[in-house]
């Protein structure tokens, strides 16, 4: 009797132990990563760029991009996540439709139904502001490239900004203005034209703050709402105020109307500086043709930097072979988002969101490990302390780096030529 009881107990212990060992040995075959981006709505071209950028990075991490082999890029030469026995990164996409309400609902749906280990998005700052509380509530580590300053001011533990914030993106404008001034180029009045959601408002606030700190008084600020067919009064206002350095935040549809209206009303400031949003969307170039030329934007990547980072050209060539176009700021930033997440998962040795979050805090990626001009290292607010930007100008319908000089591939055209001379 006693022997049978002992046998039973031993058997139970054995089964439990086996179970424990089995659990321990069980590693996930794939890690699900959610991507919330605007695939329809007012910025579908941009969403598509983000999507192919993220997919390209996931393919590299899963061993499908031979062009990356032998480089310092994080994930090059991997065949899945190394510390998880080669578990594959699986991306699942959700469409924000460029709307905060839809983005929020989609983030919630994605998190509850797909159980992702981490998420990224939502490109539009206004949408990211709306989904941040959702990801915080579900405790899912989340990377973003949205620029709105407020995102990292609210003490979120799970939100990490991989790209520049509004200040880092605006900083380069003032460095550029100093640089062109040393070249004897003059300007008088700085003004702003911006759409009135988080991206536009935060960037305009940052620019105003930085201008004042440098003793520059911004002359005029014109916010506008995107849903309208006519922008004549906005442009007339800027023209009559004589604004010749114009800081513009727009998305594609409104960016098209604004540029057409500038042409119509013969308004050509010396400099148009944007943080992207319209002038990195291929659709803007299709619609505007040569009128897309001469605008400038803050830029985070250039294949032309390949003299210092040879891998950039190889990667861009492979991307172009697959997608028929060069990488741009959006595809590169979403590529980097995937790298940052994969790196955190690998160091966490786990597909558990909380473990990944802890690992992500300690992210320390050097510039040569990512495609961006800068590396990735987070401060206590989870802003990227290494983030910095360059200035690119649209010349011959292509973005060419014009500042800083060591990265430049073209000389800036300053001032923007009058419409009548084009």
């Amino acid at each position: 009797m006693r022997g049978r009881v002992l046998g039973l107990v031993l058997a139970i212990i054995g089964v439990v132990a086996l179970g424990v060992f089995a659990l321990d040995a069980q590693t996930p075959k794939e890690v699900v990563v959610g991507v919330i981006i605007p695939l329809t709505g007012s910025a579908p071209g941009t969403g598509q760029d983000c999507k192919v950028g993220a997919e390209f990075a996931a393919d590299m991490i899963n061993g499908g991009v031979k062009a990356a082999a032998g480089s310092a890029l994080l994930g090059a030469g991997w065949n899945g996540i190394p510390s998880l026995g080669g578990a594959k990164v699986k991306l699942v996409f959700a469409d924000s439709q460029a709307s905060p309400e839809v983005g929020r609902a989609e983030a919630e749906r994605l998190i509850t139904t797909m159980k992702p280990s981490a998420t990224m998005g939502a490109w539009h700052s206004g949408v990211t502001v709306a989904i941040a509380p959702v990801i915080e509530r579900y405790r899912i580590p989340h990377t973003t490239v949205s620029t709105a300053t407020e995102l990292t001011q609210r003490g979120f533990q799970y939100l990490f900004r991989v790209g520049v914030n509004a200040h880092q993106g605006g900083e380069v404008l003032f460095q550029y203005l100093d640089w062109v001034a040393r070249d004897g180029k003059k300007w008088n009045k700085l003004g702003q034209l911006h759409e009135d959601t988080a991206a536009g408002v935060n960037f305009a606030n940052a620019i105003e703050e930085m201008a004042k700190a440098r003793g520059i008084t911004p002359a005029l600020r014109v916010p506008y709402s995107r849903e309208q067919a006519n922008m004549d009064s906005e442009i007339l206002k800027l023209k009559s105020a004589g604004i010749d350095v114009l800081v513009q935040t727009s998305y594609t549809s409104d960016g098209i109307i604004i540029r057409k209206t500038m042409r119509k009303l013969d308004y050509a400031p010396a400099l148009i500086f944007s943080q992207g949003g319209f002038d990195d969307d291929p659709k803007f170039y299709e619609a505007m043709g040569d009128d897309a030329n001469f605008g400038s934007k803050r830029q985070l990547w250039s294949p032309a930097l390949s003299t210092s980072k040879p891998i950039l050209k190889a990667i861009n060539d492979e991307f172009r072979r697959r997608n028929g176009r060069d990488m741009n700021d959006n595809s590169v930033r979403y590529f980097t988002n995937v790298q940052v997440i994969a790196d955190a998962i690998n160091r966490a040795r786990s597909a558990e969101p909380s473990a990944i979050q802890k690992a992500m805090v300690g992210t320390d990626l050097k510039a040569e490990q990512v495609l961006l001009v800068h590396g990735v290292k987070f401060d206590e607010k989870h802003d990227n302390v290494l983030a910095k930007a360059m200035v690119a100008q649209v010349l011959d319908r292509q973005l060419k780096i014009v500042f800083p000089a060591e990265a430049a591939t073209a000389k800036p055209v300053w001032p923007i030529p009058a419409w009548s001379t084009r």
Partner: protein
Amino acid sequence: MTAEIVLQSVVSGLMFGGVIALVAVGISLIWGVMDVINFAYGEYLMWAMYLTFFLYAGAGLDPLVSVPVNALVLFAAGVLTYRLVIARVMRGPIFAQLLSTFGLFVLLRYAAWLLFRPDDRQAQSLVSNGVVELRVSTGELVAFVGSVLATTALFWFLTWTKTGKALRAVAQDREAALALGIEPDRLYAIAWGISAAAAGVAGSLVSSFMYVNPLVGDVFLLPGFAAVALGGFGNVYGAFAGGLVIGVVNVTGGTLTMPKVKLALVYLVFLAVLFMRPRGLFGGRRQ
């Protein structure tokens, strides 16, 4: 702020108003004749813009040349809408009518989304990139002139043709018109056809300077409704005038104060008019 800038803003406002006016006339016609609000009107405009775009991209047709094609196709679409949907729900409660045009709105928008993808497209016209003195783009000028011509043609039709007179008779008093032997059903179909054709013409005209995407109907529909209400519900002359007023208040008002408040100004004027003349500027007369 110089006089030149103010004058420019008035001219810009009139150009913008001309397009809104044509949209408002189309909405107003249906309302005037049969007391139905067509929430899907902006979507007709959007489909017309896609038709223009594909005629341009596929057959190389200049948006201005596609005006008659658009007018005919949209006329047919309007008649079809009436026969298939509206004629049936006219017998139901007013809610059924409201919901049916709202349903059409949803159907047309998401069908466009599915078929045409959400990207912005832009047709190019001979008149797309020119600018004439006082800085009016040739595209806008042509759209304005086209809008005035189309509205004049409609006025002429309503005033002088037998069908036009019958339409006005039905609008003024359906029962009396019936007693006179006028067949409202056929006239309703025609009214829907003409209203949709106006969207067709407007769609072609704006395509030389405006991008098209599945959401573009909204940016014309709301000012269009405001113009209809401003001019007096159901009065097509008033709707046209309302469109011009809205254009000028929008652009000149925005330029003189702050562009951010221009829509508020439009609705302020709208409220002021309704306060003083509750039936709109030209309200009371059903034309």
